C-alpha cells in the first residue's frame, strides 16, 4: 500500500499529559502489564549480574583455588542465562501481547467514533488521510506503548542496577566509570533524534517515488504523446537522488554515532584500567573486580541507546497520538437533543405496542415535509441555500434540476439530516425535525446515490444492507420491483454473485439497480435519489425508470433529476441555481413559462435523442 500521507511533525517537547492519556489503553491490560514490568525489572538485575560470574571465575584463578571450584562461575552463569532466557520469553509475549491488544482497542474505538460522526466531518478529511489515521497511527502508538515502555523500564533499571553493584563493590572506582554516562546520554539523544528524522525523510521520498511510479504507469500514454519520457525520467532521477542522499545521510549518522559511543565506552574501560590497575597493584582491589568494572564500562551504551531511541520515537509519534486522541475526543454534533432523549424514554413502552407511534411519541406516518425559510452554509464564507421554502406531501415526487453546485444535493442532505439548516426550520408533520429522533428519521430514508457505493460481497448481502433481517424472498421481491431481478439471474451465481470491490464487476447502471433494491427493501417513507449523469445504456435506463415509478408510490420522493422522463413525471419541479429556486411548478407550467427550465429541457431532449441514435446504429 502506498502511503501518501506521511506526517513530518516532530515535537521537541514531550506532552506528558497526552502520553498519560494514551497509556490508559495499556492500563486496561494489567494482566500483561504487571508481568511485563516485573520481567523488565528482573532482566535489568540479571544482566547487571553477568559480569559477576566473570569476577568469580577470575578470582578463582587469581587465588589459585582447587580445580573443582570451577563449577561455581559455571553454575552462576547457567543460572543467570536460564533466568535471562525465561525473562526474554516472558517480556516478548507480554510486550507483543500488550501492543497488539492496544492496537486492537484503539482501532476499535476510533472506528466506532468514525461511524458516529456526521458528514461535515468527512467533508473536511480526505479518505486516505483517515485511513492512515486508523491504521498507521494506531499501529505506531501501540508499538511505542508496549515496546517503548519495556525499553524504558529495562534501560533505566539496568543503568541503576549496574551503578548499584559497582557502588557497592568499590564506590570510588564506580564513580570514575559512571562519569562516562552524561556524555553518553547527550550524544545518544542528539543522534537518535537526527536518525529518526532522516529515516522519516527516507520514507517520505520513498512515498513520492511510489506515487511517481503510479503516475508513470497510469499516464504512460499521455507521457508518450507529450514526448516527456526523458524529462519524466530526469524528474524521477531527481526523486531517487533525494532518497539516495537521505539514505546515505542516515547511514552516515549511524556510522558516526556507533564508533563515537564505543569510544566513550573504551574511555570508561581505560579509566577503569588506569585507576583500578593502580588499586590492583596495591592490592586494594582484586583483578576480578577490575575485569568486572571494565565490562560494565562497555555495557552502559546499550540501555542508554535504548532510552534515547524510545524518547526520540515518542517525540516523533506525538503528533500521531494527538490526532488519535483528538479523534476520540470528537463527538457528533448532530444528535438527539435532551428533550428528544426524554421523550424516547417516556414513550418507549407505548411506541413498542402501537405501530402508528414513532419511538419519540409522535405519529410514525410522515404526511408532510416542510422547508420553512431555510438557509444553509457549510462555512461562514459561502451560503449554499438562501431562504428556501417547499412543502412536499405524502405520495409526491419532487424533482430538483439545475447546474451542479447549485444546491440540489444540499437540499436532500438537509432532508436526511446529514446536515442541519443554519437558518429556518425543517418541519415533519409540522414539528421541527430537531425535536424528532434522529435514528427514527434516518430509518425512514431510502437513498440511492449518484455513484452508488456497493460493498465487496454478494448481491444478496448488498441488498440486505437496507434491512438486515430481510429474508431471501423479500430480497428477490425487491429486486423484481426495481427490475433488477432479470440481470441478476443472468449472472453466473445469480444473487450469490460476488461483485468485487466497490461493485467493480457491475456496470454503473447495474450498480444503480442493486442500490435501488437496497434502498427499497427498507420500505422507507422518504425516498431520495440522485440520478446518474454518466451514460447508462438505454435498456438499463428504461428499467430504472420503470422501477422508479413502482417505488415512489405512497412515499415522499426527492429526485436530483437528469432524465427527461423522471423530470416530466414529477409532481413538482424545482430549478435550483446558485442556492435559490429560480422556477418552481409542474412540467407543463414551467414549459409554458419559456424560462430557464424550457432551455434546460430542450437541451436535454436533444442530447438524449442523439445518444439513442448513436447507440442504435
Amino acid at each position, binding site marked *: 500500500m502506498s502511503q501518501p500521507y506521511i506526517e513530518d511533525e516532530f515535537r521537541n517537547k514531550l506532552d506528558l499529559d497526552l502520553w498519560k492519556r494514551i497509556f490508559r489503553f495499556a492500563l486496561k491490560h494489567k494482566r500483561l502489564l504487571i508481568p511485563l514490568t516485573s520481567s523488565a525489572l528482573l532482566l535489568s538485575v540479571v544482566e547487571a549480574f553477568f559480569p559477576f560470574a566473570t569476577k568469580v571465575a577470575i578470582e578463582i584463578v587469581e587465588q589459585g583455588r582447587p580445580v573443582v571450584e570451577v563449577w561455581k562461575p559455571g553454575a552462576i552463569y547457567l543460572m543467570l542465562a536460564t533466568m535471562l532466557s525465561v525473562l526474554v520469553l516472558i517480556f516478548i509475549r507480554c510486550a507483543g501481547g500488550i501492543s*497488539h491488544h492496544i492496537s486492537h482497542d484503539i482501532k476499535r474505538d476510533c472506528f466506532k467514533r468514525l461511524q458516529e460522526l456526521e458528514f461535515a466531518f468527512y467533508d473536511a478529511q480526505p479518505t486516505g488521510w483517515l485511513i492512515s489515521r486508523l491504521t498507521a497511527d494506531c499501529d505506531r502508538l501501540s508499538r511505542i506503548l508496549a515496546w517503548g515502555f519495556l525499553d524504558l523500564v529495562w534501560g533505566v533499571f539496568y543503568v541503576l542496577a549496574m551503578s548499584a553493584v559497582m557502588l557497592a563493590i568499590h564506590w570510588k572506582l564506580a564513580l570514575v566509570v559512571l562519569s562516562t554516562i552524561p556524555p553518553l546520554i547527550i550524544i545518544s539523544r542528539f543522534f537518535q533524534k537526527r536518525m529518526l528524522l532522516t529515516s522519516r525523510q527516507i520514507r517520505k521520498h520513498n512515498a513520492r517515488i511510489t506515487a511517481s511510479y503510479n503516475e508513470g504507469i497510469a499516464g504512460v500514454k499521455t507521457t508518450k504523446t507529450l514526448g516527456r519520457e526523458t524529462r519524466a525520467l530526469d524528474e524521477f532521477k531527481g526523486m531517487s537522488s533525494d532518497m539516495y542522499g537521505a539514505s546515505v545521510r542516515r547511514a552516515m549518522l549511524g556510522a558516526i554515532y556507533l*564508533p563515537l559511543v564505543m569510544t566513550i565506552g573504551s574511555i570508561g574501560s581505560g579509566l577503569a584500567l588506569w585507576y583500578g590497575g593502580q588499586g590492583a597493584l596495591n592490592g586494594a582491589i582484586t583483578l576480578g573486580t577490575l575485569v568486572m568494572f571494565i565490562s560494565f564500562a562497555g555495557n552502559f551504551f546499550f540501555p542508554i541507546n535504548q532510552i534515547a531511541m524510545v524518547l526520540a520515537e515518542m517525540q516523533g509519534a506525538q503528533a500521531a497520538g494527538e490526532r488519535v486522541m483528538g479523534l476520540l475526543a470528537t463527538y457528533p454534533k448532530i444528535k438527539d437533543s435532551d428533550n428528544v432523549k426524554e421523550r424516547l424514554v417516556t414513550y418507549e413502552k407505548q411506541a413498542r405496542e402501537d405501530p402508528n407511534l414513532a419511538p419519540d411519541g409522535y405519529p410514525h406516518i410522515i404526511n408532510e415535509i416542510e422547508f420553512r425559510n431555510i438557509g444553509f452554509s457549510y462555512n461562514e464564507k459561502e451560503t449554499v441555500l438562501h431562504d428556501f421554502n417547499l412543502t412536499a406531501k405524502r405520495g409526491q415526487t419532487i424533482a430538483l434540476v439545475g447546474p451542479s453546485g447549485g444546491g440540489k444535493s444540499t437540499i436532500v442532505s438537509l432532508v436526511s439530516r446529514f446536515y442541519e439548516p443554519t437558518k429556518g426550520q425543517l418541519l415533519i408533520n409540522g414539528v421541527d425535525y430537531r425535536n424528532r429522533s434522529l435514528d427514527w428519521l*434516518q430509518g425512514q430514508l431510502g437513498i440511492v446515490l449518484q455513484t452508488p457505493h456497493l460493498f465487496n460481497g454478494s448481491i444478496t448481502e448488498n441488498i440486505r444492507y437496507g434491512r438486515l433481517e430481510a429474508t431471501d424472498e423479500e430480497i428477490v421481491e425487491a429486486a423484481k420491483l426495481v427490475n433488477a431481478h432479470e440481470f441478476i439471474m443472468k449472472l453466473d451465481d445469480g444473487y450469490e454473485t460476488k461483485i468485487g470491490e466497490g461493485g467493480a464487476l457491475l456496470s454503473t447502471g447495474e450498480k444503480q439497480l442493486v442500490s435501488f433494491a437496497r434502498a427499497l427493501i427498507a420500505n422507507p417513507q422518504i425516498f431520495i435519489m440522485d440520478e446518474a449523469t454518466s451514460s447508462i445504456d438505454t435498456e438499463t435506463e428504461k428499467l430504472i425508470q420503470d422501477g422508479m415509478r413502482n417505488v415512489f408510490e405512497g412515499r415522499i420522493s426527492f429526485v436530483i433529476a437528469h432524465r427527461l422522463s423522471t423530470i416530466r413525471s414529477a409532481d413538482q419541479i424545482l430549478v435550483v441555481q446558485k442556492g435559490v429556486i429560480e422556477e418552481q411548478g409542474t412540467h407543463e407550467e414551467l414549459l409554458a413559462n419559456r424560462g430557464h427550465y424550457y432551455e434546460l429541457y430542450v437541451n436535454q431532449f436533444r442530447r438524449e435523442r442523439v445518444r439513442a441514435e448513436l447507440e442504435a446504429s
Partner: protein
Amino acid sequence: MNTQLHNSQGGATPAYRLIWNLIGNERLTYGIAALALFLATAFQFFVPLIGSATIDFVLTEQKADANPLLKYVIAIIGGPGLVKNHLWLPALGMLGFAIIGGAFSFIQKRRASIASDGICKRLKDQLYNHIQRMTNRYLDQSQTGDLLQRCTSDIETIRLFLAAHVVEIGRALILLVTVLPIMLIMNAWLTLASTFMIPFIVLFGYFYFKRVKKIFKEVDESEGRLTAVVQENITGIRVVRAFGRHDFEIRKFATPNQEYRDTSLRLTRLMSMFWAPSDMMNLTQIGIALVAGTYMALQGMTTIGTLFGFLALLNMVLWPVRMMGRILTDLGKTIVALNRINEILTEPIETEKDSVKIRPERPTSGRIAMRNVTFSHSESDTTVENINFAVEPGETLAILGPSGAGKSTLMHLLLRFYDCDSGEILLDGFDIRELERQYVREQFGVVLQEPFLYSRSIKENIRFGNQVAKESEIYEVARLASIHDTIARFSDGYDTEIGERGITLSGGQRQRVAISRALLSNPPILLLDDALSAVDNETESAIIDALKNRHGKQTTVVIAHRLSTLAHADKIIVMDKGRIIQTGTHDILTREEGLYKRLWDIQTSLEESFQEEAMKAS
C-alpha cells in the same frame, strides 16, 4: 550506469548470477567497505586485548611466554616495565585503538551505504525508464496493480537486501575471519571451546525462520484484510450513514480487527520461541568458554588476560551471528523479487526498425493520409479494416460513429502506439514507420478520450505542452479552452494542485485543461479524441469558435458527435464496426441517408412529440 540485471541470452538466470550482476559496478566500493570493515574489526579487537595484556604482564606478572600476541600488544604500548609505572598508557592505547577502529568503521559504513543505495537508485531509475518506453502492446496486457507492486514492494525487498542484508552478512563473515585467527593465536583449544556452537546457532535460526515463514505472510494478509475493510467503510461512509448501519459496520470491523490481533499474537509467541532459545544458546556458548577458560587458567594452560580477551571478543561476534539464519531465509524472497523485476526489464521497449530512420528538419506541414490501413492485434483497441482518407494541411477532419467503431484506434495508429498490419500511414508523404517515433509524436497535440493529468499544479500541467512557454501564453491557451475563468476562481489560481493532494476536477474541467496543454505545444496537427464530451454545449461552441479563429491554422482531426463541432469540418468520415461507411462534407452528408443525417435532423428540428408538448403547455 550498468545495473543491467538480465543477460543478453534471455531465459532464466541463476540466482547468484542475478545478485552478482545487480551489484555490478559497485563491486569495488563493496571491496573497499570490506577492507575497511576488516581493519575496523582488527583495531576494535585490540581494545580488549590491551586490557588482557595489561592484566597478564603488568598486574599479575605472568610468565611472559604464554601468549605471543599479548606480548606483542604490550610491546606496542611501551613494554611491561614502562606500563607498570604509567598505567595511563594502556588506557590511552585503548582509546587510540578505539578511535582508529571507529574511523575505519565509519569508512566501511559510508562506502557500503554509497554502494547499496547507489545500486538501488540506479535500479529504480532503470525500471522507471523502461516502463515509460515499453510497447503499448505489453502495457495493454499487463495490470497496473501488478506493475506497481513490482516497482514498489519488490524494489523495497531488494533495497532491504542491499542496505541491510549484504552488510550484515559481510560483517558476520569478516568478524569470523578476523576473530578466528586472533583467537587461534591466543589459544587453539579455548577457541574450539568458544566457537563450536556457532554453526548450530546459525542453523537454528535458518530452519526456524524457514518453518515460520508462513506466519509472516498470514500477518501481512490479515493486515491487508483489515485495511480493506477500513478503506471500504470510509469510502462508503455515506451509504453507511444513509442506512444507519453503524452498529452493523462496527460488528463487521470487529472480526478482521480481532483476527489481525490474534495472528499477530501468534507471531509474537513464535518469535519468543526463537529469541529465548537463541539467547540461551549464545549465553551457553559464553558460559562454556568461561568455564573452560577458568579450568585451563587453573591448569596453567592459559592466562587470566587471555580469558578476559576471549570473553570480550565472543561478545562482539556472537550477537550478530544470531541474525544470520533469518537473513539466509530472507534471501529466497530477494531472489523472487529480482526475478520479477528482471521480467519487466527484459520486456522489449519501443524500438525503431533497423531501416534508416528519417527525422525531417522541419515540422510537418500537416498533410496526413491513410491508405488501406488494417490493424487488428491489440487487446484494448478495436480492429479497423481498409481505412482510406487524406487530410490536407490546415483542414479539419471529423470522425463520427458509435462507440466501438474504431475511431480511437485510428488516433492511436497515427501516434504510432501501434504499427498497422498492412497498408500505410503517410505524414507529408513519408511512411510514419520510416520516421523517428519521437518526431511523429512531436507533430501532434493530443487530447485523449480520458485525459490524464499529473498530480501537480494546473500551471505545470499545461506547461507540459511546452516547457519554455511564458505565463501569458499559458493564460492565452487556457482562455481558448474556456477554462481560464474557472482556474482564476480557485483560491490558488493556476497554482492549484490537482489530484491526491489537491482538488478533484470535473470531467469537463479535466478535458479543458488537457486541451490547453495540447494547444500550448502549438503542434502542426491537433488530435481531439472526443475531447469535449463532458463539456456543456455552450462551452463547446465557444471552444470550437476559438480554435477556428486561431492564427495559423492547424490540421485538426476530431472525434465528436455534436453537430456543432462536426459541421465546421472540411471532411467528415462516418465509421461503424471498423470500417468507413460514409465520407463527405456536411452539405453532402446532410443530403445522404445515414447516421449523420439522422443526427442532424434531431438536432435541428425539434421533434414532433416535443412540439406537441410545448404547444399543449402554452
